[in-house]
């Protein structure tokens, strides 16, 4: 062997060595998942279970070996419901923490603040907020897991039609979720032959709504009342409703689809109906229901770990994380464009919210069958068919 051959040999070994080194370095690069959530503040109802869910499942996935040998690294920031803070944190996630995908935005306000950023940075973003404006018109990099508020309205109106009710009184809080749902309900009501005869409002932190309900009681012809709200307001509305002796059917929104609402409202919640994801009635779902396995597992895991009732908001975070993970698996890595395409190609994914079928024009992937109409009977949820 001459010097040239030896040199070539050494170069080859070094070359292969470098290749292996970089390959292992890349393989050990964690998959960075960023989240900005409203863990404190007026939307803590949403952000707290979302954070808990993300943390729990990232841990589990990592304990099971990660994805393709890579561990997940979760970075969570608390925007306290403030859209400006959310924007700064979204920027921080993209520029400083260099995340591969963002799962977050507990409220519509915080989500919309981040939308221009993720579009510009071309980072896939799965929102956990409700309003229909997030995905309509569909934005290239923005997806969402929760049902839209418009769907909630449609579900309620469909039920009203079945009960032959046409005159509706609306009562909602002053928060973003409430006002957005109220807006959507006003828009789609005519389609279901529903006439809105009263439209009252209360402050998110108000302690008594008897004045507004008295006004509704005095409105002639009211046949049903819809409380588009979330947080503690609807529980107070429910209690005031019974206190005043109102007997018309009362509908709540999916924003209070939680055991907490039933606990706070007590007996007053008897007979209240609301649209909710299958997660809430995991136990009474028939075995044939494709969501049964997923929702029961999530419910058991969450309640065992955190000793508190599961909520649909945590479920949305679960779906968001799992959709992202699934898309990363299908894309074979964290290349943002490939992950985005994989997300858009999601078909038949079974989540806590429903069965997800995304497309280029539908970045949410749920239809009305994803909602169940539930009624509170003796403190428990019952499915209305």
């Amino acid at each position, binding site marked *: 062997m001459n010097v040239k051959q030896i040199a070539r040999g050494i170069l080859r070994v070094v070359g292969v060595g470098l290749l292996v080194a970089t390959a292992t370095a890349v393989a050990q690069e964690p998959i960075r998942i960023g989240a900005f959530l409203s863990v*404190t503040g007026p939307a803590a109802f949403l952000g707290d279970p979302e954070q808990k869910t993300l943390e729990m499942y990232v841990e589990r996935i990592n304990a099971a070996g990660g994805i393709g040998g890579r561990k997940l690294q979760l970075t*969570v*920031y*608390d925007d306290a*419901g*403030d*859209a*400006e*803070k959310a*924007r*700064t944190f979204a*920027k*921080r996630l*993209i*520029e*400083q923490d260099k995340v591969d995908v963002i799962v977050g935005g507990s*409220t*519509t*306000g915080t989500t*919309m*603040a981040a939308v*221009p950023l993720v579009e510009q940075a071309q980072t896939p973003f799965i929102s956990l907020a409700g*309003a229909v*404006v997030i995905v309509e018109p569909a934005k290239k990099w923005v997806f969402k897991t929760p049902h839209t508020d418009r769907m909630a309205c449609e579900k309620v109106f469909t039920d009203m039609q079945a009960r032959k009710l046409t005159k509706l009184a609306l009562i909602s809080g*002053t*928060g*973003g979720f*409430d*006002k*957005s749902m109220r*807006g959507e309900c006003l828009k789609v009501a005519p389609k279901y032959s529903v006439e809105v005869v009263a439209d009252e*409002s209360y402050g998110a932190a108000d302690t008594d709504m008897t004045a507004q309900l008295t006004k509704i009681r005095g409105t002639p012809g009211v046949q049903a009342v819809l409380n588009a709200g979330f947080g503690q307001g609807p529980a107070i509305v429910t209690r005031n409703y019974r206190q005043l002796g109102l007997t018309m059917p009362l509908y709540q929104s999916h924003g209070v689809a939680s055991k907490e609402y039933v606990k706070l409202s007590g007996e007053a919640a008897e007979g209240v109906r609301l649209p909710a994801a299958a997660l809430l009635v995991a136990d009474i779902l028939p075995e044939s229901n494709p969501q049964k396995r997923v929702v029961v597992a999530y419910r058991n895991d969450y309640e065992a770990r955190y000793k508190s009732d599961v909520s649909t908001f945590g479920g949305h975070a679960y779906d968001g994380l799992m959709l992202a993970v699934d898309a990363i698996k299908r894309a074979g890595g964290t290349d943002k464009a490939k992950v985005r395409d994989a997300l858009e190609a999601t078909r038949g994914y079974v989540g806590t919210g429903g069965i997800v079928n995304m497309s280029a024009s539908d970045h949410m992937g749920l239809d009305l069958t994803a909602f169940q109409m539930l009624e509170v009977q003796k403190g428990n949820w019952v499915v209305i068919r």
Partner: protein
Amino acid sequence: MDSLVHSAANASSRATLAGALTARTRLVAALALVIASLPLVIANDYFYDVAITVALNAIVCIGLNLLIGYAGQISLGHAGFFALGGYGTALVATRYGWPTLAAFVAAVAAVALLAFIVGRPILRLKGHYLAMATLGLGIIVSIVISTEDRITGGPDGMQVPALAIGGLVVQGERAWYWIAGGALVAATWVASNLIDSPTGRALRALHTSEIAAEVAGIDSARHKLFVFVVSAAFAAVAGGFAALHAGFITPAKASFFHSIELVTMVVFGGMASTGGAIVGAAVLTVLPQVLTVFHDYEMIVFGGLLMATMIFLPRGVVPTLYGMLASRTRS
């Protein structure tokens, strides 16, 4: 003998005048230096974003400091002016199709006019009653913005078009950094000049004792109104820029809590100190970003730091530290 006394007096007054002049330009120069050199250490757009937010908060605080620190008044509703600056810009630009720069100027002018109209009756109140009146005003603004959702987009806010200066669209954090930084330097310069002007001296006299100042011939109502309008204009400028930079604005910007945040920044940094207002804005804007490492304990640490600073530096950060330094150099 007389001439000696006169020249000695002149010399000392010239010295203090020179001293004051240098002090005024010293702050502006130091600020300009910091702003110019910061990009050398800034690693990415996120830091630019924080710097821009600091600059805009500082502009509001400088104005608010003139009102609270120098004129001795109080406003718990300044976030209202901030938000109106932002919403005004957004609405005039989108509904009336004005170019964004013109919309911005129009919005600031409108807010100044509003402050002028509202200021006269409100400033007749004193102390905690003035606080309540400004608080009420701020809340009313916030409620109106939030409820009139057909115009303002409601609680979820509205999008704001990008700022265009003479056909060139301002894009990117770097460009905004220079705009915000420049505006901050200008605001500091204006405020410093105001403080050293006859109006500034009138304000300080007012602060000490309104009745004594009036006896000395100072029209307290006119001066208070002037400062109120100026501070409202500063807030509107910052609000307009913030809305244009972020591309959106929400009614939360008009909230009582935002107003409290601003007052806290001013008092924390040190009242009657323009440098203090800037320091207060900087620290209390950056701190929440830094404290995210504490996760669940963030509020505890933040509240604790706020309390500790005010207990141990009761005149605010800058005046107390300045005082400590001064006494040290003297001894």
